[in-house]
């Protein structure tokens, strides 16, 4: 295990203090340009499914099929949720079609002892991490039960407030460092989140502490109706990380192999004391922002269609066929299995979808004060009067 205490960084009085603060402080007068660290850029699978053999991580066939299945399951779950929502059987839902490679790629290299702190459009990654689909359905449908991370899964519940979870994620990573555990945190957020001050503070705290964390910014082009160009005046977005001294890379987020390679490198670097990494995953939100949104108001069909050709599932399918990992029938079988799985999850969800108003006061405190216990008592009596269980 690596020793990652921060004595060198947070040294006390005078130590390690460079005087003057910049190498050229006392140099002659001049006007010049200081070279700055670049941003890496990575794509392994081209849009047509062809692969760069040198960059290919050469995963086992079984692993490749697991990855493909996870992406398909994500897509099928997505579709089922949309159907349920339309039928009035599900709350407002934020679908993720188009972002499956980004989702699966960023968590694939994590181990059980690692952490994951997602934003709300991350059910694909959450399922991979061990969140049962029925639990996610309960969550999106507003049942208390859905919010508890499954036993053994070192995940934070997802965050609805844009960018708000990033600082806690950095704190968990700092906590791992403090405990000298070699666990790494992956946290994700959208292009919109990059505008939040707390995300900037998170990048800075991670950099200053060299915390073992990987930031995955899923640049899907839109924050509701706001284009990324209205959000940020910088391209690639990965440059934002550079400004905080965080090594940064832009990845084709619709190329699951590239996502896996970039995230794996970042995780391993973090695990061995190398500090944080910022990954911009360039992808696209194919569907509505949420089921309450109508994208026709703000974007053209042409734009969406252009991205259909870059579908991460299709691209990876071509790769699998090209490597003879499976055949067309095999791909279809996976699709059918996933559909069956999701339907089974839906049935389990339905059997568990009982509102539990009596739990409203649970977990507000670990040690509930008397005055709140009295409020709870009155509340329960109200439920009794209403005949509510």
């Amino acid at each position, binding site marked *: 295990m690596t020793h990652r205490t921060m004595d060198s960084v947070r040294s006390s009085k005078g130590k390690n203090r460079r005087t003057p603060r910049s190498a050229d402080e006392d140099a002659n007068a001049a006007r010049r340009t200081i070279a700055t660290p670049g941003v890496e850029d990575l794509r392994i699978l081209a849009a047509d499914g062809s692969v760069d053999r040198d960059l290919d991580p050469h995963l086992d066939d079984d692993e490749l099929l697991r990855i493909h299945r996870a992406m398909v399951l994500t897509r099928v779950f997505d579709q089922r949720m949309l159907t349920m929502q339309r039928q009035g059987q599900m709350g407002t839902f934020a679908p993720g079609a188009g972002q499956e490679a980004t989702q699966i790629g960023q968590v694939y290299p994590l181990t059980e002892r690692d952490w994951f702190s997602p934003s709300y459009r991350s059910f694909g990654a959450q399922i991979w991490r061990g969140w049962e689909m029925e639990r996610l359905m309960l969550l999106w*449908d507003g049942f208390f039960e859905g919010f508890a991370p499954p036993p053994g899964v070192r995940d934070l519940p997802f965050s609805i*407030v844009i960018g708000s979870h990033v600082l806690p994620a950095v704190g968990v990573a700092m906590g791992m460092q403090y405990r000298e555990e070699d666990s790494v945190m992956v946290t994700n957020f959208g292009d919109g989140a990059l*505008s939040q*001050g*707390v995300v900037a503070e998170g990048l800075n705290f991670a950099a200053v502490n060299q915390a073992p964390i990987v930031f995955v910014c899923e640049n899907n082009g839109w924050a*509701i109706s706001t284009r990324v160009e209205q959000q940020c005046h910088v391209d690639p977005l990965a440059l934002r990380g550079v400004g905080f001294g965080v090594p940064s890379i832009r990845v084709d987020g619709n190329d699951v192999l590239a996502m896996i390679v970039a995230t794996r490198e970042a995780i391993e670097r973090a695990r061995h004391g190398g500090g944080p990494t910022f990954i911009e995953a360039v992808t696209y939100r194919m569907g509505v922002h949420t089921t309450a949104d109508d994208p026709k*108001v703000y974007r053209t069909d042409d734009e969406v269609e252009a991205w259909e050709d870059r579908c991460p599932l299709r691209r990876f399918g071509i790769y699998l066929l090209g490597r003879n990992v499976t055949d067309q029938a095999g791909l279809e079988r996976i699709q059918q299995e996933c559909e069956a799985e999701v339907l089974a999850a839906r049935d389990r969800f339905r059997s568990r979808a009982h509102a539990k108003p009596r739990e409203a006061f649970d977990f*507000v405190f670990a040690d509930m004060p008397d005055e709140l216990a009295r409020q709870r008592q009155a*509340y329960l009596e109200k439920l009794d009067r*209403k005949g509510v269980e």
Partner: protein
Amino acid sequence: MPELTMVEALNRALDEAMEHDPDVLLMGEDIGVNGGVFRVTKDLQAKYGVNRVRDTPLAEAGIVGTGVGMAIAGLKPVVEIQFSGFTMQAFDQIEQNMARYHHRSRGRYPISMVLRTPYGGGIHAVEHHSESREAYWAHTPGLKVVVPSGPRNARGLLAAAIDDPDPVIFYEPKAVYRAFREEVPDTPERIPLGTAEIVRDGRDITLISYGAMMRPTREAADDLAELHGIDPEVVDLRSISPMDTDTLAASVARTGRCVIVHEGPRNCGVAAEIIARLNEEVFEYLVAPIKRITGDDIHFPYFQTEEHYLPDPDTIIEAVRETVAFDG
């Protein structure tokens, strides 16, 4: 007089203000081509252009802070925070700048600015989308805090808020946004900030509420009159800060009894403030303890159970009956 929803009435008020004063401009997330997630700013960008209806980056402190700067530059920004839960992101800019530049500059830079934001429960929303924390702003010196309860007063109050030379927090009850229509006069109307409205005259008890909770409160009042022989006076506060203490006190001086209804948490909430004022103003008229029907001091529940969290007519009726039955 057309019948409008609250969303339409607010849109009307914004349109009228922009039409009338080129210094009025709007800023917020997705308020432009999208017209806001609740469509309050619908069609205004098409009408007034991208300079006057500005989609911002996703940063609430940024929206409020740059809005303050716009006001310093002499403009009249009306900023939208997409949900009131995200005013927390801008708390520092609201408390330290929006509420203070006028004072800090000794009058040089008045901040004539409105922060509009939908608040409250009742629409089956996700975490952080149902909060009612108007008490934070009422506790903050330098701010005025307004909460309309229906289309007509929403329009009149928003017009007055935009006119006001001071910063106004304008909480819109999202549960009311499209809940009903009301006649709204064709000509612009202004309802002075700081005035409550007696929406039902009564003798036996004063019910005080505001915003979305006016509906269960009025429903309870009607039932009380019809079924329980109790004749409640009902006051719509409309303005949380400043508060129309005189109207409240006069009513309670008449009735001697009072129940207050709001959906925000109880502890240090608006009802506590009203009780404190009534205690100060009409102590000798009070014949029963004033009751609070409020949200409990818990996180707003995940939405399958929110109906049980929100004050409802039955709970109000029961509190009123207890208060009327009280004999100390």
